[in-house]
């Protein structure tokens, strides 16, 4: 560790409180101009899926409806992710500004922060910040209003359509897509939903122009990103780094000199074994050579004292519990994968059974209704294939 291979970036948590000034400048600019800045910056969603943010706002601005909504996704439930909490603690005004500007551009009067129930303790402080922010908006003649909506302990509610079902007072079961929220979102109205970090980056882009952001990162993966670093590392915490970094450099900086695997992107992400650190880059697909892994920023390090069987079992228990149970491939698939690896470990099933389980996870990827069921195969196949012996003996 401690080789300092990677440049530390200081944009998101930079202590800037000139909200009045920035907002009044932004509000004087045309919507087209602002959207062009966002598109020009290359910003992609930081919640995991990586949809271009400028395009999302543009599509929603073009949707015809009197009522539209902006939602900030602060459900942050992916194991190993804790950056959004820190943004909302340290620089909530940047997120609120991103929401208000989005509201102006798409024509929404109302914004919501969907805050996971586990973060209820943030509410008093966040509500104070919202009150202050409303006062600024009022001075500038904007009637945009923001409200907190609390979750109640359900990982799946981070999935955007499930989140909207939940806000409508229902079970948080994902919807079929299309239609996408840009067309039919909360209460069936066109809705922009963005991750907390995405909205905070919008502040940087509107304040400093798209170039400053675009100059960071590589190819299709532009800008900086917050990484939540945990597990076997002497310096667990939150770090802002450039996209496109090599996993080897990351491990040189953050590992404990004994790192055998890194789980990139949480339980829904991929496990990379030591031999693939060098060829793996962290960023969105497209033009990066070797393997490129997108991520919501969760980086979990495992050293040689860890059993990858235990790691996979813990992930599968997580998915089995958090699956909404709405579709069969995911509901039954998660159970079968978990029971399957336990049976192989106990010697009740032959090791070839793992191949059957791998095929099951591939079927889930193709047939599950939402990202939860579709992504179980990521960690399942990357752990089983790279650490097969640990699964058996």
């Amino acid at each position: 560790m401690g080789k300092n291979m990677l440049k530390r970036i200081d944009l998101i948590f930079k202590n800037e409180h000139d909200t009045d000034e920035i907002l009044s400048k932004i509000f004087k600019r045309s919507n087209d101009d602002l959207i062009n800045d966002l598109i020009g910056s290359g910003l992609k969603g930081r919640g995991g899926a990586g949809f271009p943010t400028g395009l999302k706002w543009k599509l929603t601005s073009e949707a015809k409806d009197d009522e539209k909504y902006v939602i900030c996704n602060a459900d942050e439930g992916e194991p190993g992710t804790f950056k959004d909490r820190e943004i909302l603690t340290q620089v909530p005004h940047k997120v609120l500004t991103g929401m208000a500007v989005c509201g102006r551009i798409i024509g929404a009067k109302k914004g919501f922060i969907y805050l996971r129930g586990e973060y209820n303790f943030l509410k008093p402080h966040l509500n104070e910040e919202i009150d202050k922010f409303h006062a600024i908006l009022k001075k500038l003649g904007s009637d945009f209003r923001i409200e907190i909506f609390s979750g109640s302990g359900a990982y799946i509610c981070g999935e955007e359509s499930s989140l909207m079902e939940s806000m409508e007072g229902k079970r948080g079961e994902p919807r079929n897509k299309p239609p996408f929220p840009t067309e039919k979102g909360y209460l069936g109205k066109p809705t922009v939903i963005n991750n907390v970090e995405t909205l905070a980056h919008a502040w940087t882009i509107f304040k400093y122009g798209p170039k400053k952001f675009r100059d960071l990162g590589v190819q299709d993966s532009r800008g900086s990103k917050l990484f939540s670093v945990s597990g076997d590392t002497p310096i667990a915490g939150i770090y802002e780094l450039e996209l496109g970094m090599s996993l080897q450099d990351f491990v040189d900086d953050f590992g404990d000199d004994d790192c055998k695997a890194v789980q990139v992107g949480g339980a829904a992400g991929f496990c990379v074994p030591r031999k693939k650190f060098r060829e793996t880059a962290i960023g969105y697909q497209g033009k990066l050579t070797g393997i490129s892994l997108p991520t919501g920023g969760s980086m979990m390090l495992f050293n040689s004292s860890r059993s990858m069987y235990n790691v996979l079992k813990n992930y599968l228990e997580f998915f089995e519990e958090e699956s909404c149970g709405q579709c069969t491939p995911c509901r039954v698939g998660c159970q079968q994968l978990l029971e399957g690896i336990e049976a192989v470990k106990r010697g009740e099933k032959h090791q070839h059974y793992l191949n059957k389980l791998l095929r099951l996870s591939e079927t889930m990827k193709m047939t599950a209704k939402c990202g939860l069921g579709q992504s179980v195969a990521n960690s399942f196949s990357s752990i089983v294939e790279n650490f097969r012996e640990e699964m058996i003996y």
Partner: protein
Amino acid sequence: MTDIQQLVGELVKKHGTKREKLLPILQGVIEKERSLSDYAMIEIAKQLGISAADVYGTATFYSFMDTEPRGENIIRVCKTITCFMKGKNQILLALEDALKIKLGETTPDKKFTLLETNCLGWCHKAPAMLINDEIYTDLTIERVHEIIGEYKNK
């Protein structure tokens, strides 16, 4: 009028009767009562003009909406990967020892309920637990006994 009727009435007055207010209303009852009784759910259904099955179906989807009676202080220990790696099992044992109950149980004096939950978003300070809305991180066995001592004296 019973206490629950009055509580639901107040919540409905504050939030209104639209379906999209169901979660805030359920959360309001949980905040006061710690769990949702059948009676409370039927009352909410009546006042919102929806079926009790709808209320029950919605509530049981969410892990923080308990429909079994719970203690005044609900302890939720994180069991997800990093906390698991950093000694969550010892923390759980220490809690069982301090409270003299097993995982899933409530103390006879109804002061504590001990549960597990998934990643709390504090993995860099694992192991972690929630007591009601309060977060405790970097837990050790000693720290657990201290914290429970403080709550017992509250």
